[in-house]
């Protein structure tokens, strides 16, 4: 052992190199490959060996890794942008204009930051779906699912605080609308809103607050939890993919072969990261991040829309009393998501896409149900049903809150029961059906909000919206 690390004074270059990289590169055998992973600061986030079937790209789709890549891209471009931007209403918008016209590659760096941020919301959401549909949250991974939810919320918070910084009309009114949602939380809502905004309306204090949150508090918290999240993946390992017939996917026998992380996993990660970086770079070269007229607190644009990832919520607000649209329904949804991994789960469904053959059929039926039912319900509420008008003696929090929510929950319970009877499914498969139904509903609401709501938030066809 002592010979291995014996400094060789006759070769200074060699000595310096070995003081940095202790292990032989490239390693000549599996032990050497494992040691490189263990001893490297970055690589040691990985285990030294991984199960071969989990390397299959169409199992993970590389979504967690892609999210990490985007966080790195966002950190680098974000720090660069900090050097050319001052968070004050007098200068912010002018800084944006200068960034796009006088700073070398300013537009490109802004585009990269903007598109990576938006993509991160989508990728984090897809990552959640992937883990759900392959049963990747099962024991001992329940808590890592919770950490993932926390990360999703942080990503949205990072996006929302960053949204204000350009200080254009889009930014000002999206944040006005978004932060007003908070004021509907009973008792503490208005105080919380004023605390966050630094006053009753979006202004100079808001910009400073959001800047501090966006460049320091949220990224630091995010990176801490991301490390925790990845460390737990390493400790808990990935769920082994199985085919719908219960065989290990991507392996001949039922014996699960383990391969060294270097090069099998690391090379795949590098290739995927390079391809994605290239794709994002190309997109950012061609498509500019939007910048509207400077913020004008006297004039709300028509329609004034929240950021796209809040449009599902904003659509709910058009149909429910604000306490329900902004607080109760989202809180119920988040609560249900957090509770998911602690529910009973069919062991045979672990690592199987959509649980089972029956699970796949139910998921398809649920998707179609939501695709048809949600637009119908939206149209019904928009043109036919006027609940507060039908019950003029009741406060709207009951007529447009408790009553429609109770009806929807009853419909959901009925749907769950129907699925279980009709398909003779397990609770696990039926629960997935409800999940698919609600996720599709949320996506449909988001699409309606983004593409089918025009002037005065009236329903219209997408080409009339633009």
């Amino acid at each position, binding site marked *: 052992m002592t010979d291995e690390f014996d400094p060789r004074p006759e070769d200074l270059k060699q000595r310096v190199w070995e003081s940095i990289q202790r292990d032989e590169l490239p390693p000549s055998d599996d032990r050497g490959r494992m040691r490189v992973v263990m001893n490297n600061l970055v690589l040691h986030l990985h285990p030294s060996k991984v199960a071969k079937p989990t390397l299959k790209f169409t199992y993970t789709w590389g979504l967690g890794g892609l999210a990490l890549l985007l966080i790195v891209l966002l950190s680098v471009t974000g720090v660069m942008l900090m050097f050319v931007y001052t968070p004050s209403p007098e200068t912010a918008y002018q800084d944006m204009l200068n960034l796009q016209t006088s700073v070398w590659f300013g537009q490109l760096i802004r585009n990269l930051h903007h598109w990576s941020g938006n993509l991160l919301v989508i990728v984090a959401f897809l990552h959640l779906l992937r883990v759900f549909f392959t049963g990747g949250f099962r024991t001992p991974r329940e808590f890592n699912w919770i950490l993932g939810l926390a990360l999703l919320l942080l990503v949205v918070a990072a996006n929302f605080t960053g949204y204000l910084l350009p200080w254009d009309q889009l930014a000002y009114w999206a944040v006005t609308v978004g932060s007003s949602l908070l004021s509907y939380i009973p008792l503490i809502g208005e105080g919380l809103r004023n605390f966050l905004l630094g006053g009753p309306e979006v202004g100079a*204090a808001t910009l400073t607050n959001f800047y501090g949150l966006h460049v320091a508090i949220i990224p630091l918290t995010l990176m801490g939890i991301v490390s925790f999240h990845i460390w737990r993946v390493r400790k808990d390992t990935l769920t082994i993919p199985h085919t719908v017939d219960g065989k290990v996917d991507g392996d001949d026998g039922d014996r699960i072969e383990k391969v060294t992380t270097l090069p099998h996993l690391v090379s795949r990660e590098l290739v995927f990261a390079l391809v994605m970086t290239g794709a994002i770079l190309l997109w950012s070269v061609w498509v500019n991040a939007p910048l509207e007229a400077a913020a004008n607190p006297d004039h709300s644009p028509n329609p004034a829309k929240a950021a796209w990832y809040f449009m599902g919520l904003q659509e709910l607000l058009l149909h429910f009393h604000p306490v329900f649209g902004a607080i109760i329904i989202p809180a119920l949804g988040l609560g249900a998501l957090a509770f998911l991994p602690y529910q009973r789960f069919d062991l045979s469904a672990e690592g199987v896409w959509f649980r089972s053959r029956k699970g796949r059929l139910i998921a398809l039926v649920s998707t179609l149900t939501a695709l048809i039912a949600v637009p119908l319900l939206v149209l019904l509420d928009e043109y036919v049903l006027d609940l507060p008008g039908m019950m003029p003696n009741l406060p709207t929090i009951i007529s447009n809150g408790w009553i429609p929510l109770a009806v929807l929950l009853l419909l959901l319970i009925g749907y769950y029961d129907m699925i279980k009877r009709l398909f003779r499914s397990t609770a696990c498969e039926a629960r997935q059906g409800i999940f698919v139904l609600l996720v599709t509903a949320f996506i449909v609401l988001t699409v309606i909000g983004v593409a089918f709501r025009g002037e005065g938030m009236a329903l219209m066809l997408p080409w009339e919206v633009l």
Partner: protein
Amino acid sequence: MADKDVSRRDFLKLAWGAAGALALVETGGVVLSFFSPRIVEGEFGGVIDAGQADSFPPGSVTPFTQGRFYLVRMPDGGFLALYRKCTHLGCAVPWNPAEGKFICPCHASSFEMDGQVINPPAPRPLDRFAVSIVDGLVKIDTGTPIQRDHASPADLVYAGVTA
């Protein structure tokens, strides 16, 4: 000591726990107060002189951009100052003279001339500011918006009547 159930170890655990909790609460208090809203004295938030009461014809709505309110003179001559912020989600509500109502561009809430909700989702009438008329001059106190469940004739202020 009378109570022998508390051992020295338990007592110390409790004391450490309590001291730790107190320190946490204190730290939380420091952080919260540090970040609490800084109130800046400015144009908005003070008492604004709108001008002579006679210069506003009955049945008119006059926007005051700096003060963020509309001075409404009802057809019967009563004055009302309405905060322009929508009670739904905080958008700036413009007055639509053609239709004779306030229509919010964000979620299509609409309000009567006196702030009463015509069309939800707004949950309550537009907030108002206190109006006083001194020697024929209309003054509006924009310090605190007054929330109300229903618009009422009692909200109106008349020239020549001392409040």
